[in-house]
């Protein structure tokens, strides 16, 4: 559906995208993550045919974006970063324009426009000049424009930026509903969004791919994945606490002072499951437990590690 082949983009001395390759299949929602300036938008601009790559290309629905750009662009819906729009048009006339340029006419066009407006809840501002719309509504007009022709491939650059919580939920819902039928790439800085809508996440830093996997796989790379957090009524004897750290599979025991009561995090070696032996040990020793909790890990931690170079060889 979408193949990105060794895309490279150089702006003078800046290597913005460095030999990036990946494939997204139909039914996949790829979350494109990375710090500011990592090259996400630049990659998307090349995939959608706005920028010419320095090297490499992208194949969209079987069409090379370099060799047959018009055919490739027909099956893409694209929301550019910042959702640029013609300020003097209304959402109605703007969607009419994009639908017409995509060859829709008459009642087909009218129903495509009303469907896109209904999905993004734009009806109430349909004939208000775009320049007078709030930021979130502008973003929604951009999104409606990307959806109006029901494209096979959707490329959305920070689609939920500036939306209220209800609209964020709505947009994730839309993506979710369309996912099975389409190939979707979204870039975002909201990591919960990745868990919520993406079937796969790709992290890039300084123009290179540094991690690629399902959200669960990436989360599993967190150092506290499968860690057990304990909160106790009383501080246990130092000897027993030391022995906890020597159970097979346990790497270390950290004291968590911020929880107030005596609390500890038992960190596994290499993410091995240690809940069973730890809980058995705790009940054997008759520690009075206020709370016991299995950690899944956080995408934030993984993101920070892979993009700041502390897990340099990870990719």
């Amino acid at each position, binding site marked *: 559906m979408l193949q990105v082949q060794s895309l490279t983009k150089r*702006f003078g001395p800046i290597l913005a995208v460095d030999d990036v390759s990946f494939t997204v299949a139909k039914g996949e929602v790829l979350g494109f993550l990375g710090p500011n300036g990592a090259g996400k938008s630049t990659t998307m601009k090349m995939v959608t*045919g706005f920028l010419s790559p320095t090297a490499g290309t992208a194949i969209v629905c079987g069409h090379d974006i370099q060799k047959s750009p*018009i055919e490739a662009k027909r099956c893409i819906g694209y929301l*550019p970063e910042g959702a640029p729009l013609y300020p*003097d*048009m209304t959402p109605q006339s703007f969607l009419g*324009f994009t639908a017409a*340029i995509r*060859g829709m006419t008459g009642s087909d066009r009218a129903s495509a426009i009303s469907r896109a407006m209904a999905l993004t809840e734009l009806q109430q501002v349909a004939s208000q000049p775009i320049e007078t719309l709030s930021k979130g509504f502008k973003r929604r007009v951009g999104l409606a424009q990307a959806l109006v022709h029901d494209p096979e491939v959707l490329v959305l650059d920070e689609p939920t930026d500036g939306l209220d919580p209800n609209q964020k939920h709505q947009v994730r819902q839309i993506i979710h509903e369309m996912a099975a039928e389409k190939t979707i790439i979204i870039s975002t800085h909201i990591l919960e969004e990745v868990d919520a809508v993406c079937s796969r996440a790709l992290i890039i830093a300084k123009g290179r791919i540094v991690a690629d996997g399902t959200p669960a796989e990436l989360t599993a790379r967190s150092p506290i994945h499968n860690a057990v957090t304990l909160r106790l009524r009383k501080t246990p004897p130092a000897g027993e606490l030391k022995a906890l750290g020597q159970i097979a599979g346990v790497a270390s025991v950290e004291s968590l002072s911020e929880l107030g009561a005596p609390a500890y995090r038992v960190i596994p070696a290499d993410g091995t499951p240690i809940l069973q032996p730890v809980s058995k040990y705790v009940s054997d020793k008759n520690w009075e437990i206020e709370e016991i909790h299995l950690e899944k890990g956080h995408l934030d931690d993984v993101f920070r590690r892979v993009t700041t170079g502390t897990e340099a060889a990870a990719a």
Partner: protein
Amino acid sequence: MSASTDIRSVRVIFTRELTGYFSTPVAYVFLIVFLALAGAMAFYIGNFFSRNQADLDAFFVFHPWLYLFLMPAIAMRLWAEERKSGTVELLFTLPVATWHAVLGKFFAAWVFAGIALALTFPIWISINILGDPDNGPVVAGYIGSFLMAGAYLAIGSCISATTKNQIIAFVLAAVLCFLFTLGGTNMVLGFFQSFLPQSLVELIGSFSVLNHFTEIRKGVIDLTDLIYFFSVMGVFLFATVLVLDLKKGQ
């Protein structure tokens, strides 16, 4: 890519652009300024009435100089504005070829200029009421003026594609149009005459908008004049496409 989809793309862009002109007050300000200047030049500088002749020479003679500023003012926003606001990314990720957008925008600007020109019709009516003019040269004058507007707009379109700053686009386009006009004045040709052979001087003169417009204004629309204006438009619109395609790499 069939011809019908090509035409559709150009037409859709043309329509959006032309409606765009009238959705802001800029269009009306422009029309008023154009009519006021065209009228004022004809009446005050050209002594339209006191010449006591029923023709529009006094009106048309200033058009090359009027267009020198007014056409770059229309053309400056064609691409510079899209680039500045980022909508160029939207436009060029839609399934349109660069030349569709270039032609659509150019035709919209040209038709807009045509509307401004057409709105000067009262001056034509008035000479027909006051006298008994030969309407042939008047029609030719309007056609020549419209062609000249197209040539200047194509030049302006090309310059506008090179920058995201509308002021720069305006100034550079005005300078380039000025050179194209000035090339036909006796002052410039006289200067070249002092050291170039006559044939070369004539060549320079033949590139001048002014000379071709003057020829048409006399009432004879010669094929060479038509070829000249359409070539200027063709060359600069083609250059616009090249500039835009080149900018895709940046």
